[in-house]
């Protein structure tokens, strides 16, 4: 309850984690607001079906609010003039102001009458795209902060956000956002490519960092490292060096 989880990937694609959390929260009966900036609805739908959840059905019954960034941006640019009372959540493309996006999130997760869902969840894929689209890093951090206050504290929900980063990245704005978020996260799942390079059987390693030091002053963060291999319908995790290919 009220947790902020940061999904981070370096030198590999961490989107399998996003798919996992999406189907996990939907199966748990939570109301999910998914801000999908990089891929289309059908992409997530097809993968979710392999994982056993139907996004279309969840949308029908109001459990899932899906913001398809790519589609909204086309509506914004090529569509007719928007109504004054309903600013598009992607307005920041022209105004660099993320407030409309935040309002969208807040409105979709505020429980309506008759809603019987367990805690609200905000899922964002992925935050680094906001920087590419003209938002300033401070604006992105403010947006996350507002979301935390609203979703985690007021509504007692959870937030899961995906960001990309690289160790030798030259994208300073992105690194600023990622480092700042790392400091404020309760849980960090960091998917990395293997240091030794590409391997067919082990797709990468994942570091799970439980930030106990946030809640209690004397505690140390708990770090666990596993390696993983992604298959068509699931992901297998195993201890380092114990991949099935080696044993």
């Amino acid at each position, binding site marked *: 309850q009220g947790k902020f989880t940061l999904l981070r990937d370096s030198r590999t694609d961490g989107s399998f984690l996003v798919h996992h959390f999406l189907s996990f929260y939907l199966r748990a009966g939570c109301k999910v607001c998914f801000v999908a900036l990089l891929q289309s609805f059908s992409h997530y739908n097809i993968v979710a079906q*392999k994982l056993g959840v139907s996004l279309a059905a969840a949308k029908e019954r109001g459990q899932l609010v899906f913001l398809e960034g*790519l589609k909204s941006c086309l509506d914004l*640019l*090529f569509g007719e003039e928007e109504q004054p009372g309903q600013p598009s959540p992607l307005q920041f493309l022209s105004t660099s102001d993320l407030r409309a996006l935040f309002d969208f999130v807040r409105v979709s997760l505020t429980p309506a009458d008759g809603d019987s869902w367990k805690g609200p969840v905000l899922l964002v894929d992925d935050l680094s795209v906001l*920087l590419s689209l003209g938002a300033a890093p401070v604006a992105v951090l403010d947006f996350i902060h507002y979301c935390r206050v609203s979703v985690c504290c007021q509504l007692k929900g959870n937030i899961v956000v995906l960001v990309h980063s690289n160790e030798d990245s030259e*994208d300073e704005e992105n690194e600023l956002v990622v480092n700042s978020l790392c400091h404020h996260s309760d849980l960090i799942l960091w998917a990395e490519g293997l240091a030794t390079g590409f391997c067919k059987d082990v797709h990468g390693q994942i570091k799970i960092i439980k930030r106990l030091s946030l809640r209690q002053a004397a505690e140390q963060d708990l770090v666990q490292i596993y390696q993983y291999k992604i298959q068509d319908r699931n992901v297998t995790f195993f201890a380092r060096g114990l991949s099935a290919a080696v044993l």
Partner: protein
Amino acid sequence: LVFTEEDKYGLYSNLLFKYFLAEGIVCGHDLFVASAKEHPDNILKELPAPLLDDTYGKELGDEAAAVKSEDFQDSMKIAWRYQNLPKMEASPTTYTKFGHYYDASKKMSPELCQSVKWHSFYLHEELSFKPKMKTCNMNSGYAKLLQSIQRIISQEGFDGSDPQKKQRNVLRIGIQSLGSVLWGDDVCCSDAPEDTHSLTKFLYVLRGLLRKSLSACIITVPAHLIQNKAIMERVTNLSDMVVGLESFIGSERETNPLYKDYHGLVHVHQIPRLNSLICDVSDTKDLAFRLKRKLFTIERLHLPPDLSDTVSRASKQDLAGSAKLLSSGCGAMAIGKKHLDF
């Protein structure tokens, strides 16, 4: 969205670009060609001609037969671990039915070019046209291009908006040299360009258009000119597939004997992971390309055997044998490669 980083002189990336368009014509897809450098009409005149099944098959057949006779190996004695690896085919000797092959030395016939509907966008002809869409602070050249693409997609029904249209076709979009100075973007000129977001916003909107319609797009970008690496990283994140071409022209690799068979390297930076948790990762990541007289092939990079004097006796025999042939005209000496060391 296939993003290609151009090689230094643009020779090979242009070739790849033309192959994409030619494939579209042969498959009957519609084309959309955009450029700020060359007029699209000229680009289309230069497309390589497709190789017809029988001629190519015959050529390959001869080559393959020659290769097979030399290549006979029963079993490996020393490197037996490698025995279990599948026999690597460096070049496509088996004619698979996916895609077509092209003859780089011949031009595509005009009748074939005209057989599909194609649209063009030449930036310098569109200068006076004011974009109707909200530009969102994007470079006006990009905005016009997006508007043009969107117009074609909705007019021709590639986005499924016209339910009457039974025959749905694919639109192949090719954009040449995006991000170069000719498009009005200074991303290639300076480290801190004025507008860091135009290119990435353009790619985002383009991605949206592609996802919404039956189209595929290849973009070539002079990546070696972009000094701001942050933009390259963002652009990589926004594309489905990123391929870089590095040609050996003018670099020290040209004379490196390791690379003597090839004209350049292919770096695959990213492959698409669409509609699935996994992506199709190939076994090898070292790819090189070469432009033979007629064919442009991309193959696994394999190093030629190390034929230095200190290593192998076979080369010594060759050298000695040919020296003997040259020096004495005597037939008895030049029997075989047997080299008797006295």
